[in-house]
């Protein structure tokens, strides 16, 4: 009886400590900008419903977003994006699974801004490619603010840009990540 109790307590304790290592958000912001340098109009969009989970113990980092949640200024651009470019009916999600490679440099218990290096796999439009980038993790009042910026080459993900709009849509898109994570209770 005692051992059972101890085991139960131990597992409970383990899950509690485990849980406090994890931070998450379901309303992360991810921007992308694929405006070509000579383009007269901006080709950019934002999603405010990205899911992000960070395990501070291991540095494991995951993002997941729905392609249809990208909001454009022009409805036509949004429709083209979903129908012709990323085919969001066929590939509804984009995902990133990676790690903070210098996780030990971040003191999650102390407020401050920490430079981090992230590497992992980005899956979108049915293609998976390795992505490496640097960014910052800001520890502030028990929350984490994860910010990063990196470029993806559209051709790597088999996203083809028609010749007609080649002067507007760049061959590489800049992705900006801005997520405020809360501790997972």
């Amino acid at each position: 009886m005692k051992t059972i109790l101890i085991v139960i307590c131990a597992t409970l304790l383990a899950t509690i400590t485990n849980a406090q290592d994890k931070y998450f958000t379901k309303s992360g912001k991810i921007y992308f900008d694929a405006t070509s340098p000579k383009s007269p109009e901006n080709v950019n969009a934002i999603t405010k419903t990205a899911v992000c989970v960070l395990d501070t113990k291991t540095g494991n980092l995951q993002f997941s977003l729905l392609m249809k949640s990208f909001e454009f200024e022009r409805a036509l651009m949004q429709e083209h994006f979903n129908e012709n470019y990323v085919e969001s009916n066929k590939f509804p999600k984009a995902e990133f699974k990676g790690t903070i490679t210098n996780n030990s440099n971040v003191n999650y218990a102390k407020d401050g801004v920490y430079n981090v290096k992230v590497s992992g796999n980005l899956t979108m439009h049915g293609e998976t490619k390795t992505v490496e980038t640097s960014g910052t993790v800001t520890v502030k009042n028990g929350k984490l603010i994860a910010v990063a910026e990196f470029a993806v080459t559209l051709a790597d993900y088999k996203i083809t840009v028609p010749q007609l709009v080649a002067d507007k849509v760049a061959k590489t898109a800049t992705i900006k990540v801005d997520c405020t994570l809360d501790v997972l209770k």
Partner: protein
Amino acid sequence: MQEHQTIKQMQMKKKSIIRYVMLLLLVLAAALAFYMYKEFNRKPKNLSAATADFTLQEQQLLNEFAADEKTATAKYSGKVIAVTGTVKAVETDDTGNSTVILGNSSSMSSIRCSADSLETQAVAALKPNSSITIKGICTGYNTDELGLGADIILNRCVLVKQ
């Protein structure tokens, strides 16, 4: 002489026909240009004026996605959905974006309604456990692979007055 006259008349007639055709083409071109201009500058749908493609209860929507994500995604994503349910919580981030979370507080799964920026005030006044109807564009389903509960996402949501 008589013959000469008719030829001249015919030529004039031809000229006026060509003129009419030209005018018609011009009007058509202008209409096309106008349409293209409108289409190019078209803003995403104003949701408060849009009619819902689907009107249903929170539980019904959650059940459909839980039972068969693919079919439900094909059916609902990109569509305007008006859903009636219980407010679990309202989250507002530091930049003022609000999310209304509909669902049963005993379940991890919920419908996350990202509010239109014009609705921030109305949404902030919502009380937990109150019943509301909210309208938004469904963008899909996040499965429970991260251990945070599965969620249906509605975007650019507006409250439906009752």
